[in-house]
């Protein structure tokens, strides 16, 4: 009886998962405890859905709480109000369906590139030999086939990012969360990394939440660009579909008229928010 019920429940959940969006944030408010019992409200009442094959870029001025929203979707911390659901199921604890590409270096420095990529499979129970074999293939896909035995400190910033990308993608997560992943890289490497990301993503479309402060990058990569207001108590204030054709070439697409039109449109909104941030700075300076 109980088993039958459970099975039915599972079937229902599976059916719901197919139709439900990959990520659904519903009135999410996130607060942090400060010293002396004060609370800081980073994000207020944010609602956002990300479809299961959709690439959504989240853009906003620095310090507006973009990463906070991403961390809530990852389950690294829970919202103070509102709900996060993943494929229709409310999220509690770590989001097992998601892979997370961090802004800072997140590779384990004591493991080689190969070990770093393989670890996600190994902890999930894949035999070490098979995991390493697959990791080797993934390192090949991100162009690092001959760097398997290097430790992270022996790699350049761009190479480390590529290892991190392979580390996330090898687990085949249904949702990919990215927190300004190419932020610390130089401009040329960013373009190359963006193209690589688009190539890998188009082979096997996943839901992507891509946080950035670079509007050009956001438009070039995403299906939708969501704009956040200046913090604290940041809100989602704009949602722009990007109707540019795929496949895209990041350095080429910036030259197209449609790109520039949508860029101008989003920038008009974003600029006010960016200026607010600087307005605060000026006031603080007075």
């Amino acid at each position, binding site marked *: 009886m109980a088993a039958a019920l459970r099975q039915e429940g599972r079937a229902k959940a599976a059916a719901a998962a197919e139709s439900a969006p990959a990520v659904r944030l519903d009135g999410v408010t996130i607060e942090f405890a400060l010293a002396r019992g004060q609370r800081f409200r980073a994000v207020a009442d944010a609602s956002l859905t990300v479809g299961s094959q959709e690439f959504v870029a989240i853009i906003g001025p620095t310090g507006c709480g973009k990463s906070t929203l991403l961390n809530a979707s*990852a389950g690294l911390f829970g919202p103070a109000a509102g709900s996060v659901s993943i494929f229709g199921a409310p999220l509690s604890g770590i989001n097992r369906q998601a892979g997370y590409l*961090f802004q800072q270096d997140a590779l384990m420095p004591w493991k080689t590139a190969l070990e770093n990529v393989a670890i996600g499979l190994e902890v999930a129970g894949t035999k070490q030999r098979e995991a390493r074999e697959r990791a080797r293939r993934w390192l090949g896909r991100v162009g690092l086939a001959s760097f398997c035995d290097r430790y992270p400190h022996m790699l350049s910033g761009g190479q480390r990012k590529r290892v991190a990308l392979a580390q996330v993608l090898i687990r085949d997560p249904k949702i990919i969360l990215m927190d300004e992943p190419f932020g610390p890289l130089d401009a040329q490497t960013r373009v190359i990394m963006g193209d690589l990301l688009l190539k890998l993503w188009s082979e096997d479309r996943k839901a992507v939440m891509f946080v950035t402060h670079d509007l050009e990058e956001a438009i070039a990569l995403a299906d939708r660009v969501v704009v956040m207001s200046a913090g604290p108590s940041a809100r989602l204030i704009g949602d722009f579909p990007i109707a540019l054709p795929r496949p895209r070439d990041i350095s080429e697409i910036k030259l197209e008229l449609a790109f520039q039109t949508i860029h101008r449109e989003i920038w008009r909104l974003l600029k006010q928010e960016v200026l607010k941030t600087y307005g605060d700075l000026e006031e603080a300076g007075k």
Partner: protein
Amino acid sequence: MNRLSLLSLQILVAVVIVAFWQVASTTHLFGNPDNISFFFSTPSAVATQIWKWFAEGTIWYHLWITLLESMLAFAIGALGALIVGFWFARKERLGAVFDPYIKAANALPRVVLAPIFTLWFGLGIWSKVALGVTLVFFIVFFNVYQGVREVNATVLSNARMLGMSERQLLRHVYMPSALSWVFSSLHTSVGFAVVGAVVGEYLGAAAGLGYLIQQAEGVFDVGGVFAGMFVLAAFVLLIDWIMTIIERRLLVWRPEFSKQGK
């Protein structure tokens, strides 16, 4: 500076000191050589003594005892500290409760424990091992504690997102981080294990380098004392060298230990 010239300069320091010592203890240049050689012995007497120890083979037994005591002290102290350190660092409340006791125990000069250990464990090697353990334990403990507490937050979040359970985090993140701190304090902790053994032997034993030195001192055999000190110094240098090799192998992932520069 290349290796050869560095080595020759290092040897030159020893040559100058020994030459000065030889001159001072055999000629009238710096005073009465009889007095000086009584207090400082002479290089030749010390060398003869060391030669005799090795030629007769008596020294090996003492060296072995000291080595055994040091290694046991290090192994037991490090293992205990690893377990306790991990436990305290992961259970914050437990760590907070015991914090003043750990600090108090660490502040205690360990030499005062030696007679008690002799009483508890007898004159054999175990009282020396115990003394060494009390020295090694705290160094390793604080390093493990620090290593666990200071795991990079992003690396930790990443490991969690990669699906690691609490036990897997321990194995793949906390443990390597803590061990890297422990390895980087390897020289100090092994050094202290030797100090514990030698001091223990000095205060009461039937074998070991500390015992040799103490025996020589008991009969005003300054040459014997110096000979014991030189053998001890060589012994420590040798252990330190072995530690450097081990460290290079274990910490190959650290920028400062890797031969393959960027």
